[in-house]
């Protein structure tokens, strides 16, 4: 009888010590991040990582999540889906992170990560563009994103086209996940928007877009949208100018808003508008805009730390980490509660826009957060506000 007592006591002690270590582990909040700081998408990766660094520093300086510092685990996806998937597994099974923020800065990579995070029931905030990452929401309850949707961008562009009386457009997209997803979205949306669209494609590594542009030139498209995040977009600028397409409205996607690209395009940069979040033109916004002050403050902080200008990629990852922080704080270490906390975020003013999530909507920004900008005298200027 006595022996049994010892046994039970022993078991009790064991379970207690286990539960202690478990709750101890819970105290350490960790966020896992996968971005590509090498490979074709590397260009965005560095800035996106920097945005997260600033956010994590700010959070930890202000006391972390409910008093516990946030531990940040970072892996480079090298712009390769298989590397990102391996790192995701590692984050989920070895590092046991509470949330994953950032999906390799390529939509294709983020989409490949979703099944893993969904299965593991770990909230995932993607910092990539494509709407397909978070839809259909019923199948992807654990996935959110901090970027604008192609759909919202097209709705916003439609407003602009109406102002300019443009009815027929061409979409020149690359064959990466980013470009393909936009093409699919526009195909589904064009009837509703009342736009006639011609589709042309190119590979991200292409060095010549003349054949596609010649076809567009021979069509009666009044506006040309170029959908890519790769340097091929610079070739678009140069060759569209060379072929005399400047009499049409030329617009780059939000993926191309980069100072480096504009500098590479040199004189031809001014011929092309870009559709973007408000971040790059913070100073040009009217004072009534709720974004203006926070954009200026992050810009200042970034310039002090990195001695260069931040871009909207910094903004979207900074926002993603801040959203994660908000949800982790409200979720109190429970995953389902954290997920619901993300869904309940309303009217949150981030640097990239005003976030409104809901059960049906896991992509927080809307067309009101999007503006058209242009490159002028070495900086981005506001071209069309609302």
């Amino acid at each position, binding site marked *: 009888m006595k022996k049994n007592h010892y046994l039970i006591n022993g078991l009790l002690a064991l379970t207690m010590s286990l539960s202690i270590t478990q709750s101890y582990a819970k105290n350490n909040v960790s966020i896992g991040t996968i971005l590509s700081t*090498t*490979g*074709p998408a*590397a*260009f965005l990766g*560095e800035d996106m990582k920097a945005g997260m660094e600033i956010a994590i520093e700010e959070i930890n300086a202000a006391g972390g999540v409910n008093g516990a510092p946030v531990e940040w685990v970072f892996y480079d996806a090298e712009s390769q889906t298989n590397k990102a998937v391996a790192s995701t597994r590692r984050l989920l099974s070895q590092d046991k992170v509470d949330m994953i923020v950032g999906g390799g800065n390529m939509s294709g990579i983020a989409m490949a990560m979703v099944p893993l995070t969904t299965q593991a029931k770990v909230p995932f905030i993607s910092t990539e563009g494509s709407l397909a990452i978070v839809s259909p929401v019923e199948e992807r309850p654990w996935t959110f994103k901090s970027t604008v949707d192609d759909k919202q961008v097209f709705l916003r562009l439609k407003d602009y086209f109406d102002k300019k009386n443009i009815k027929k457009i061409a979409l020149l997209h690359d*064959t990466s996940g980013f470009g393909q997803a936009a093409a699919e979205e526009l195909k589904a949306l064009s009837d509703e928007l009342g736009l006639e669209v011609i*589709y*042309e*494609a*190119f*590979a991200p*590594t292409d*060095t*010549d877009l*003349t*054949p*596609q542009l*010649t*076809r567009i*030139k*021979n069509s009666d498209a009044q506006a040309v949208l170029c959908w890519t995040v790769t*340097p091929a977009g*610079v*070739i678009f600028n140069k060759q569209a100018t*060379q*072929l*005399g397409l400047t009499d049409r409205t030329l617009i780059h996607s939000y993926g191309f808003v980069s100072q*480096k690209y504009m500098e*590479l395009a*040199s*004189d031809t940069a001014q011929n092309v508008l870009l559709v973007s979040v408000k971040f790059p033109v913070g100073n040009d916004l009217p004072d009534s805009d709720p974004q203006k002050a926070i954009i200026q403050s992050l810009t200042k902080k970034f310039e002090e730390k990195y001695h260069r200008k931040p871009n909207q990629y910094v903004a979207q990852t900074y926002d993603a980490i801040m959203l994660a922080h908000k949800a982790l704080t409200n979720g109190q270490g429970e995953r389902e509660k954290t997920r619901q906390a993300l869904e309940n975020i309303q009217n949150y003013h981030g640097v990239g826009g005003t976030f409104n999530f809901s059960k049906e909507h896991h992509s927080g920004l809307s067309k009101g957060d999007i503006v058209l900008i242009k490159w002028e005298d070495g900086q981005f200027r506001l071209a069309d506000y609302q």
Partner: protein
Amino acid sequence: MSSTIQIIISGLGTGSIYALIAVGFNIIFKSTGALNFAQGEWVMMGGILAAFCFGNFDLPVWQACILAGLAVALVGAITERVLIHPLLNHTPFAITLVTVGISLLTKSLVMLGLGKNPVGYPGISGQGFTSFWGASITLQTLWILGITFILMILTHLFFNHTRWGCAMRAAAANPGAAALVGIRHSRVVLGSFIIAAGVGGLAGTIITPVTLMSYDSGAMLGFKSFSAAMLGGLGSLVGAMAGGITLGLLESLVSGYVTSQFKDAVAFFVLLLVLVLRPQGLLGKAEVNKV
């Protein structure tokens, strides 16, 4: 009409880029029998080094190009001495395998040393373009066409009409017999690496104003040009020109007239077809091996 010319000119421009890089493939193939997988990386290195010289030393573009070409030739020489020369056997297969490693090494070193940003600079005669029958062409594309043509002739003269060139071909055809008549195999390999790297580097410097260049552009350029060399017939210099132009024209005609969505697929399907029907390439000589 003008758009047909535009599309053909575009194909010629892209094709001559492929041809130019394919020449480098052929130089090493002719003198060692190996396939050089580092060729694309040398092209990339040339472009990035030229951008670096142009941006940091304030050199005129043509000087930056020549300097970068010479620098890449030097890199080719060092690579050969350090990585190929110590090999115990110089079979084409062994050299081919080492070049795979060289390509990865070159790419990583450029990334670490010169950064990840894509680069570009104005062409040799500035950013301008001119027009032919309503079709427009950048001046740099004319330079590329011309330089490709000149390099092609020079390499042809070198391999067929100079002692050095003939010796290099002899060493590839029969290393044993070549050694008996006093041709030092290791010198031949060194020579071919220097020339191929120099030509590759120079190619990179003149295409960068048109295509832009970043540390990871080498693989795709190498791959396409290797296809061009295969299409024309490996080892044949005229074949490289024909293969490159064919591939470039095919790509631009398909995307201009059929569909831009499956341009690469169609181009490579034709490549497969040619290789199945004519394995030696369009202009290659069929190889007869006696067993």
